[in-house]
């Protein structure tokens, strides 16, 4: 059976096509494009991706409105069943607002929008989303966000560290995130949220291909289960 993914588009999403192309090219599978107002998702998905952008114009808080849209109830339901869910940038903000990941993403500490390549450390190379990387590997992935300043209380941060749920850390000052956290996993390990954009780094024309291994990890993980 071919790899099957869904990419959700909210009004104001702008990285949904890039995400769909990355998944298609790397998996060779099928990507369903799903609109935020749809109440149902296809069944038997291998991956659900929430893309970057400015859903609902970032009204109220980044990701707040999208997290309450009809399709998100279906995403939460499938995530709780163990379907892999990847949220990038605005998708990460939506996942925290929907309660699928702990913490919140606040305005960048430097106030300005940050748009550049950053170096990341692969903090956990055993997860569904990171197993194709080497532990501690340094990778380069672009960021483009205004609200990427990860916040959680100290107790939550300690728990995330203790449970190996910090997937990626910034190796340079970026947005003021607590403990330089760039990507976070849920307790079961099937939901990853990250501010950097792996889908924008999958071929030499992008300036590098360090993002490929994230998608390859999901593919390999599923093959290992099959």
């Amino acid at each position, binding site marked *: 059976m071919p790899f099957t993914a869904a990419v959700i588009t909210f009004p104001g999403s702008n990285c949904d096509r890039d995400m769909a192309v990355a998944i298609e090219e790397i998996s060779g599978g099928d990507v369903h494009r799903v609109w935020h107002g749809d109440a149902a998702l296809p069944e038997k998905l291998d991956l659900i991706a929430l893309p970057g952008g400015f859903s609902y114009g970032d009204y109220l808080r980044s990701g*707040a409105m999208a997290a309450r849209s009809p399709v998100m109830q279906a995403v939460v339901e499938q995530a709780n069943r163990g379907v892999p869910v990847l949220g990038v940038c605005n998708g990460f903000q939506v996942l925290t607002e929907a309660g699928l990941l702990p913490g919140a993403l606040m305005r960048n*500490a430097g106030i300005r929008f940050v748009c550049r390549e950053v170096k990341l450390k692969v903090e956990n190379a055993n997860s569904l989303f990171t197993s194709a990387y080497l532990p501690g590997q340094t990778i380069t992935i672009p960021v483009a966000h205004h609200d990427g300043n990860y916040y959680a209380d100290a107790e939550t941060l300690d728990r995330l560290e203790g449970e190996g749920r910090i997937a990626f850390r910034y190796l340079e000052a970026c947005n003021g995130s607590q403990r330089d956290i760039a990507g976070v996993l849920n307790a079961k390990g099937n939901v990853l949220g990250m501010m950097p954009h792996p889908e924008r780094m999958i071929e030499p024309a992008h300036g590098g291909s360090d993002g490929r291994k994230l998608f390859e990890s999901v593919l390999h993980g599923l093959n290992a289960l099959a």
Partner: protein
Amino acid sequence: MKVRVHVSLKNGVLDPQGRAIHHALEGLGFSGVNDVRAGRLIELDCADDVTDEALEDMCRKLLANMVIENYRIEKVAA
């Protein structure tokens, strides 16, 4: 019934916007401001039978992000 919901950042949560406003005030020559915290005011025009419980629920489910924010509900005489 007019309801004002005041949303503010919890104590201990750094406020980059408040800090930028503070710097801007200093840049304009205003001295003596010790700290600035920026929040949000949401005004609701509600039917009279909307309960206090429903208002609390609205705040917790959407109007405030309970990870980083507090809220205060103020009912205003029409």
